[in-house]
């Protein structure tokens, strides 16, 4: 038994180091601060570097430089800090650098920010959204792997609960397929040979004066299409005979799944889908059930963001209803009154009854 009792933020840091992350830079902001603290403590012990950067803008720039040398590198923050990084995120993506971003969000209102790219231009980050620490430990490792596979940033969308909850988890390195060497990484060795490298986001090539953005960006667009097909992930339960399906993401889904399991135990024909990747969105999973359910309920704690993706997935094949809403306590950290299984239960029961006309049999 190799499980250890650790807080989410610590588990994420340990797993990142297991995944070979050797550079981290960040600026404190609740609930991301603890991730930074653990990085600062543990990274040097692993022979890596953690810079307590003077701002988020500088943090992401440092990660950019570290990535350019071929290192596995990450940064992170919380809503506001990530907003400040948007310009860099957009450019790093188009420079095809494998950045990993630890987003410890204050709740679920940053779904658009994560999935639509808040920056300029056509780009996407792969967004992994763990339900709990066990999954976060896997996701952060997967993030470094996928980032290298696709040469595209990957974000972990966590939150206050993920950062602050502690669980008994196994902290083991996952063995992924080996990846090709990073022949694009800078080290200066080819300078003066005509073969030096220029890591950029606009289609600059060495020795050519102009830039070729169209060709460059079209290639990237094709990559995003390939990622959409290859990397959509979800979790589902009880779909076979469900006539109502509820979807939720992240730690909120743990509350929803718990209630659905209870309702199932009590006989409701209710099912559950959780997008594990927020981008690419696991549309197929929703398509597959759209024909057989009365409604898909979207329980998200924001003004209604993921619901767009559910609607885009089913395109009218099933009604889609918003079941959640904005919910915050006085801290503003995203832990609101809707994070209560009793409350969720009454919401789901009402939706189920409304849509299916059935009372659960008791």
């Amino acid at each position: 038994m190799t499980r250890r009792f650790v807080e989410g933020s610590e588990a994420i840091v340990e797993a990142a180091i297991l995944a070979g992350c050797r550079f981290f830079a960040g600026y404190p902001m609740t609930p991301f601060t603890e991730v930074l603290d653990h990085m600062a403590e543990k990274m040097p012990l692993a022979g890596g570097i953690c810079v307590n950067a003077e701002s988020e803008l500088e943090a992401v720039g440092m990660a950019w430089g570290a990535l350019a040398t071929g290192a596995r590198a990450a940064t992170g923050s919380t809503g506001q800090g990530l907003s400040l990084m948007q310009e860099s995120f957009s450019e790093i993506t188009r420079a095809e650098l494998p950045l990993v971003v630890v987003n410890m969000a204050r709740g679920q209102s940053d779904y658009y920010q994560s999935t639509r790219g808040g920056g300029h231009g056509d780009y996407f980050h792969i967004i992994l959204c763990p339900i709990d620490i066990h999954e976060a430990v896997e996701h952060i490792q997967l993030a470094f792997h996928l980032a290298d596979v696709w040469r595209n940033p990957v974000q972990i969308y966590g939150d206050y609960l993920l950062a602050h909850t502690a669980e008994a988890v196994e902290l083991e390195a996952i063995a992924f397929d080996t990846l090709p060497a990073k022949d694009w990484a800078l080290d200066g060795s080819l300078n003066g040979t005509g073969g030096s490298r220029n890591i950029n986001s606009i289609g600059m090539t060495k020795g050519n004066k102009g830039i070729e953005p169209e060709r460059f960006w079209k290639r990237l667009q094709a990559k995003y299409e390939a990622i959409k097909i290859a990397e959509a992930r979800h979790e589902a339960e009880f779909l076979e005979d469900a006539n109502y399906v509820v979807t939720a993401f992240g730690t909120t889904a743990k509350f929803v799944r718990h209630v659905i399991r209870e309702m199932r135990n009590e006989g409701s024909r209710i099912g559950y889908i959780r997008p594990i990747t927020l981008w690419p969105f696991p549309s197929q999973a929703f398509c597959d059930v759209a024909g057989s359910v009365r409604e898909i309920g979207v329980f998200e704690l924001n003004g209604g963001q993921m619901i767009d993706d559910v609607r885009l997935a089913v395109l009218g094949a099933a009604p889609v209803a918003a079941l959640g809403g904005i919910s915050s306590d006085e801290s503003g950290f995203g832990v609101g009154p809707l994070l209560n299984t009793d409350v969720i239960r009454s919401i789901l029961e009402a939706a189920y009854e409304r849509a299916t006309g059935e009372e659960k049999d008791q």
Partner: protein
Amino acid sequence: MIFLTRYSSGGGVERELLVTGIGGQGVQLATQVLARALTLEGQYVLSLGTYGGTMRGGSTDASLVYGDRPISSPPIVASAWSGLAMHHRFWEGTRIRLRPRAILIINAPIFDPAIDLSGFQAYAVPAVEIATARGSPLSAAIVMVGAYAGLTGAAGLEALSVAMEQSLPSYRRKHLDTNIAALKAGHAHVPSVRHLAWEDMAAVA
């Protein structure tokens, strides 16, 4: 790509414990000790501590869910099987979340004896007195956890002692012995295993 995610499908035994107190009572440490002990015994645990306000003297709560499979319960516990109440100041928030007939241990006599606990299976433990007697007046919460373990069989004393050692920050390592003594004294104070934590859930509910 070889990558497998294991998802718990729920089921099995899952127990919830709420611990409430005020700042400085050691609520977080005590909860961690129990969580670590359970981990050492191979169980799954899920715990969340919350602190009210920035000032000392604010509320400090912790919740712990433990079970023999990956925990299905979410980290904010709406309905709990058991509770430890160190102080009555923020008791109301805990009371409403304890299930009828929940197992409850109160820190006597600090916890206001006038409060009606008739809906619960309540036990009073003079935790401060016991802790003080073991040379560790700040370890009342540890006494309570010892008592809880004794009463429910949630975790064994040996695991608790190791967990105690793992949980103390280095600058407090010198208090290890008195803390373990407190733990054991709490354990000894209660009638043993009245409420078997590891029984099937349905049998208890």
